[in-house]
């Protein structure tokens, strides 16, 4: 043995001598594979020697290598080791983050960073860059298909249209089902606020315009990263706002250190309508005369007339290319103690519908300063001005799609205005679509300030304090006008109308946290958080309306001969104390206990507080069990929690209200009436024993990583039971009241979420530093079931809809099922027909569709080669019914492309119903496609004369949500200094491809938008868009 060692030493010496002779210098730069940023401090070792060096501040190195066949080993904390053959004079290396070993942290509730492996619940992260790749200007829509369990539905492609997000399904029947939105630790208002008069009889979401969800005031370019706290466990610290989970946006902050940095980015987007219902243009306006011959008639809106002479497709005369210009400048700077970021953002968008646009300007200043070694202070002020011009939508006689799709091909919409400013219509009670677009704009402007300040005092290693307060204040002023001659006004009078409203909202949030960390024993660590929290929410709304205008195109209330105004306000305060105690054992076993007690004024005076607990455990079994080498990391987790959801304010009492009387066909009557005001007792009974709604979540999960983290798998399963759900329990009106507000309902969400990440190239060929392929797949399935409503209530309509269909909660069915008229069927499902063979309508309404998707999937591919990046994201939704009311209506009106064949017949088979001469026998008749009787194939089987069941369609889709190619010029290496650090160029597409069986507009559509719990209504919804955009980013 001794001899061998001696020999080895001699050989080694010989080698060294030999190598010395061939020493040569190798140079290069080391960068992060993901961010493409240079990495300082990377150790480079010549394999098998002690020769080593580190990269400098610019990530550059040079090393002397002796001998052939040597390899260089690159290592840096948090990165995977990389070994490269030392066979060139210049070797640039991309290091890949070691997701296995790094002490990864993630932002959790209250903005607290926690170690990922300590978490017993599920959190998904989305980077700001991934969000921006979507090309969406709305930070909610930008999350679509980015994380399993997240369901984002945009309401349409018009500028400023809202997007609704839910996590793990709906949890409640009324109120918001969307997660809490938090920016830098302070909640922000993401409500969607339709303008509504105090005397408005109908659900304002069914008509009007596509409103914005107010998170649209955030500039996506300011976002650094997003944490999605799924379910009540992750969000438990938010107490009565935790039930729906939370989305935590962390904004970019200044970077301490040297000097000033500037980034500038600009983009130009061109958008087109991506999908429309197909129309026939062969036949023009008219109807069948008594002998069945098509005749031209303008007394009908229908297109059952003779062939049009010069047929036009109204779409060609209407939609245009929408352009969006985005410009962002950010300045970073700082010194050793203070850092600063100032950003300016501007978005200027025009829509595909004429005369629609959005202009948003944001200014954001963030500063952090270490005042002493222990005290840090900082804050952010964000000012946003968002101005939107919106087009009429939905069930609305001035609706763009309603009048556009019904436009007979014999009518030319381009000639829309008479000399006196009134419109040229094809039918007396529909607006000309171009006239309504140009003359009836809905304009609104929001001025918003979101700000927060904090003081952080770290007394010693164990004990620290954080005091933080934030405010979110905005005012939205809205004006809706209906020109004289437009029939969009409330009374279809054509006399002109102007609505003006102002919404002021102010939310204050403040908390004080005490942090305490201590190693209790050698093996047991403790991290504690004790806090107090205060919130105050205030909203005031003033609405004014003028009808019967005198001077055309002049929209001041003093131009109206009939005036009305209404106002409402609400104030709410909550206080809470909370505790979060986290224990860890040897870094392999973690237990966290959380409790929050909260008092809210919403429960009435003298109400006791409510307690929201949570417990979660995490076991890193790869630390305690010997696993095969390829099994790099394994963690099992479980959590139990109860999150809350607060009731509406002032619902603990029965008040008197100004009544509104309507049978649903007219605007009805209300007071003041002939100079008299009037009040009646509310039709809804208040509830003095209100409790919060609770969501009890039980979840488990696995976090697995294989082959040094080249394959990652995250699986979550959960069961969320919502209890004490507040229901406007419909009660028999014979009791004198039509509803009660009660804590009665229950529903359950069960689901699975799977996230899979692979980097195949690195996996197969670890040293291939130049080509990186990241493949991420997310899949989630949520099953919702309403398990209980209230005593004696088996179903109720969630919000006032069209009656038939309505969105219902029905025991045993998923939340929000579509309920309406259906065909009468026997037990085999055969249609029951009358003596003439015509299918009969079931006298009782029933469930006719389920808007909840069966599962959602997203597949993201990102390829990086040198400075090139190419990525594309597939978004798949399976299932989810939509009521295509547009189709039923266009069938009835002879406008849908399918109605072009109007002389043929369709075979209708069924079984003769009881009471007919051939009862029980099979029937088969040839039903004329159209004969004007109201009982033909197009109007009865497919159209509005038959049951609503006809127009339920599957809303599944496969879409290429985003695709993009970018190239980055690194200018730091160029000898001739330009002053630029880099220039990045990109071209991308949004919604480039869409595959769906849905026959209407893009099935990512919602008539009622983010402010409503009705899903899946399509009744002349404005269409969605696809777009191509170019962007340029410069770093200085």
């Amino acid at each position: 043995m001794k001899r061998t060692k001696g020999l080895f030493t001699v050989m080694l010496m010989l080698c060294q001598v030999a190598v010395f002779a061939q020493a040569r210098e190798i140079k290069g730069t080391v960068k992060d594979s993901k961010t493409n940023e240079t990495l300082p401090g990377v150790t480079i070792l010549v394999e098998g020697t002690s020769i080593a060096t580190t990269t400098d501040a610019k990530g550059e190195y040079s090393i002397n290598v002796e001998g052939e066949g040597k390899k260089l080993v690159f290592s840096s904390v948090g990165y995977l080791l990389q070994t490269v053959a030392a066979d060139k004079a210049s070797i640039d290396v991309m290091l890949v983050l070691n997701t296995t070993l790094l002490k990864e942290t993630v932002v959790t509730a209250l903005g607290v960073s926690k170690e990922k492996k300590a978490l017993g619940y599920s959190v998904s992260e989305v980077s700001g860059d991934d969000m921006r790749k979507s090309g969406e200007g709305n930070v909610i829509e930008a999350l679509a298909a980015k994380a399993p369990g997240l369901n984002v539905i945009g309401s349409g492609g018009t500028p400023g249209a809202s997007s609704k997000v839910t996590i793990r399904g709906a949890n409640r029947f009324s109120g918001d089902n969307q997660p809490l939105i938090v920016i830098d630790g302070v909640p922000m208002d993401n409500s969607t606020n339709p303008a509504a008069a105090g005397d408005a009889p109908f659900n304002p979401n069914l008509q009007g315009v596509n409103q914005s969800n107010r998170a649209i005031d955030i500039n996506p370019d300011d976002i650094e990263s997003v944490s999605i706290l799924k379910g009540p466990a992750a969000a438990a610290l938010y107490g009565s706002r935790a039930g729906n989970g939370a989305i935590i946006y962390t904004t970019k902050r200044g970077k301490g250190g040297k000097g000033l940095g500037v980034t500038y980015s600009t983009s130009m987007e061109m958008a087109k309508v991506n999908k429309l219902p197909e129309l026939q243009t062969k036949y023009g306006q008219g109807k069948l005369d008594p002998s069945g011959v098509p005749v031209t008639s303008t007394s009908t809106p229908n297109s059952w007339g003779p062939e049009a002479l010069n047929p036009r497709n109204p779409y060609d005369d209407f939609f245009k290319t929408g352009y969006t210009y985005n410009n962002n400048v950010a300045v970073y700077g700082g010194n050793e103690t203070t850092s600063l970021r100032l950003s300016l953002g501007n978005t200027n968008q025009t829509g595909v519908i004429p005369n629609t646009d959005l202009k948003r300007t944001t200014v954001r200043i963030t500063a952090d300063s270490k005042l002493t070694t222990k005290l840090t202070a900082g804050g952010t002020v964000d000012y946003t001005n968002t101005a939107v011009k919106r087009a009429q939508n939905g069930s609305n006689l001035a609706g763009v799609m309603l009048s556009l799709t019904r436009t007979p091909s014999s009518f030319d919409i381009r000639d829309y205005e008479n000399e006196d400013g009134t419109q040229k219509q094809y039918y007396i009670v529909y607006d000309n679509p171009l006239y309504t677009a140009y003359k009836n704009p809905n304009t609104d402007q929001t001025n918003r300030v979101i700000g927060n300040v904090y003081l952080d005092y770290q007394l010693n290693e164990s004990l620290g304090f954080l005091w933080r307060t934030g405010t979110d204040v905005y005012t939205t002023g809205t004006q809706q006008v209906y020109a004289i001659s437009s029939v969009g006004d409330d009374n279809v009078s054509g006399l002109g109308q102007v609505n003006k409203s102002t919404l002021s909202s102010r939310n204050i949030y403040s908390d004080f946290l005490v942090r305490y960390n201590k190693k209790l024993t050698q093996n047991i660590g403790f991290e504690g958080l004790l806090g107090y929290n205060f919130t105050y929410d205030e909203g005031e709304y003033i609405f004014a309306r003028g009808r019967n205008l005198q001077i055309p195109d002049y929209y001041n209330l003093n131009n109206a001969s009939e005036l009305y105004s209404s106002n409402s306000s609400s104030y709410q305060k909550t206080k809470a104390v909370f505790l979060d105690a986290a224990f860890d054992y040897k870094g392999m076993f973690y237990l966290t206990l959380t409790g929050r007690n909260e008092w809210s004024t919403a429960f009435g005076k003298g109400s006791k507080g409510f307690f929201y607990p949570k417990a979660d455990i995490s076991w890193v079994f790869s630390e305690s069990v010997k696993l095969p080498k390829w099994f790099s990391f394994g963690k099992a987790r479980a959590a139990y929690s109860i999150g809350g959801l607060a009731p509406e304010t002032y619902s603990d009492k029965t008040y008197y209200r100004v009544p509104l009387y309507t049978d649903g066909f007219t605007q009805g009557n209300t007071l003041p009436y002939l100079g008299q005001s009037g009040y009646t007792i509310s039709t809804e009974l208040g509830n003095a024993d209100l409790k919060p709604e609770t969501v009890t979540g039980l979840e488990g999960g696995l976090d697995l990583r294989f082959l040094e983290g080249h394959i990652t798998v995250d699986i979550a399963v959960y069961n969320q039971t919502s209890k004490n759900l507040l229901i406007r329990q419909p009660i028999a009106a014979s009791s004198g009241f039509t509803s009660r507000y009660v804590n009665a309902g229950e529903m359950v969400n069960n689901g699975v979420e799977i996230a899979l990440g692979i980097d195949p190239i690195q996996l197969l060929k670890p040293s291939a530093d130049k080509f990186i392929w990241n493949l991420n797949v997310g899949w989630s399935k949520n099953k919702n079931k309403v398990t209980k409503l209230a005593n004696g209530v088996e179903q109720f309509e969630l919000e006032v809809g069209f009656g038939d269909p309505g969105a219902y909660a029905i025991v045993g069915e998923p939340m929000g099922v579509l309920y309406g008229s259906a065909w009468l069927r026997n037990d085999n499902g055969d249609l029951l027909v009358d003596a003439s063979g015509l299918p009969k309508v079931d006298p009782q309404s029933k469930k006719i569709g389920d808007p909840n998707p069966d599962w959602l999937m997203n597949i993201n591919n990102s390829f990086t080669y040198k400075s090139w990046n190419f990525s594309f994201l597939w978004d798949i939704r399976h299932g989810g019914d939509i009521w295509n009311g547009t189709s039923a209506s266009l069938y009835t009106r002879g406008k849908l492309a399918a109605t072009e064949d109007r002389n043929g017949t369709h075979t209708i088979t069924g079984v003769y119903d009881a009471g007919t001469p051939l009862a029980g026998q099979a029937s088969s008749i040839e039903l004329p496609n159209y004969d004007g009787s109201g009982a033909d194939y197009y109007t009865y089987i497919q159209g509005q004369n038959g049951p609503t069941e006809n127009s339920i369609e599957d809303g599944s889709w496969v879409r290429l949500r985003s695709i993009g190619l970018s190239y980055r010029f690194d200018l730091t290496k160029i000898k001739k200094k330009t002053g630029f650090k880099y220039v990045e160029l990109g071209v991308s597409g949004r919604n480039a491809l869409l595959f769906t069986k849905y026959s209407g507009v893009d099935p990512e559509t919602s008539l009622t938008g983010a402010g409503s719990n009705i899903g899946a209504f399509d009744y002349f919804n404005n269409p969605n868009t696809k777009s191509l955009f170019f962007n340029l980013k410069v770093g200085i």
Partner: protein
Amino acid sequence: MKNKIYILSAIVIFATGLNSCKKGDDLYLSPNSPASATPQTLLAAVEVGTFNNLEGGTARIASIFIQHNSGVAGQSIPHEQYKPTESDMDNYWNGLYTNMNNCKLLSDTYGAEDPYYSGIAKVLLSMNLGQATDMWGDVPYSEAFQGMNGNFTPHYDPQQVVLNSIQSLLDEAIASFATAPGSNHLTPGNDDFIFNGDVAAWTKVAYTLKARYYSRLSKKASFDPNVVLANLALGIASNVENCYSVHGTNGAEYNQWYAFLNDRSYMVASKVLVDSMGNMSDPRTPYYFDTTGVGSAVGNPLGSFNTAVSYWGPYVASGPDKHIPLVTYAEALFLQAEAEVRLGSGTAFTTLNNAIKASVSEVTEGANSGSSIATYTALNTTIHTVILEKWKAMFAQPIEAYSDYRRTGFPVLTPNPSALRPYIPQRLPTSLTERTSNPNAPTPDLDVPVWYAL
């Protein structure tokens, strides 16, 4: 150091700026709704509610069933096809019962101090309740309006009991109107749109209503036509005393016939009525229907969906502020004529002719006396002709015509041949919410007659 002071002071200023929060009751009591009302605001509201109920959807459906009008478009087609759905009924039913609840609340809360208010509330309540029982038969009353006390599933009273309750309500109202003005703490004025606080006028309406609802019992063995005549003797005695809904030109004040025509235009003249009236030979035709440009009324034939026909005319839709008859002299005279025929009185034909004249005069606002068509004689004055003529007269009160049709079988009507039911419905379906949330709610088929039609 200076910077640090700036930063700290900025933070302090920011934080103190957040202090202006609401405190105390402002956080607990709604700033949007009052906790109590007044007799004036309640009366104004229940009158408007009554206008809306009596002119609204149920009247339109009755008008289609009774073939005054045809539903040729939109959601009126199912009514033309005799398939009103239970979900359609919620708005109508809720409108009636919530309004009745407030009538009762007004009477219960303020009745002792303000009997006139109580009396008007009871007359209005009986009109709403009458409509409910006419359209649905057995309906809740004795256990109704107890939601505040936790009874959400009232039993349904048999129609016989409901009709008795209406008589009691009207008797109580008449007694309230008989009190001296001095025993009223408050007396109604402008808040009573209908009669401006004139309790004598209300008393006559109450007696006429007693006659109306007593006449519903005509098929019953105990029916005594003399009771009808006795009540009518104290009832409305001229067109001047008619009870009308009152409307205005403000959007909240529209008459609902006008509003429906204006918003929806789903209903048109029925050829059955137009033909029965001999078209323009009846002076009321151009008032019922819009004959502009054509010179005569064009009705939609049963089974068709013709929209190139006559829409409503000035009698119900001359403008948003057109008043609509609720209880009239003509109706009183028709009730009298019917009672007289039943008693075998030889002068019934005079009453019938007077009824026709009162109707024509009311419809034409005095422009025509109606004598050209008021030509009945003792020979042809029968229940059939009295009810046929009443049917022509009750254009704006189609529920009266519908009730008469069901209890007398007149006028003889052919069911719409293209309807989904082979018969004219005898009632409306039970409202969806009532069926699903009140186990006491019966759900009879639409061919089951209401009790008074048996």
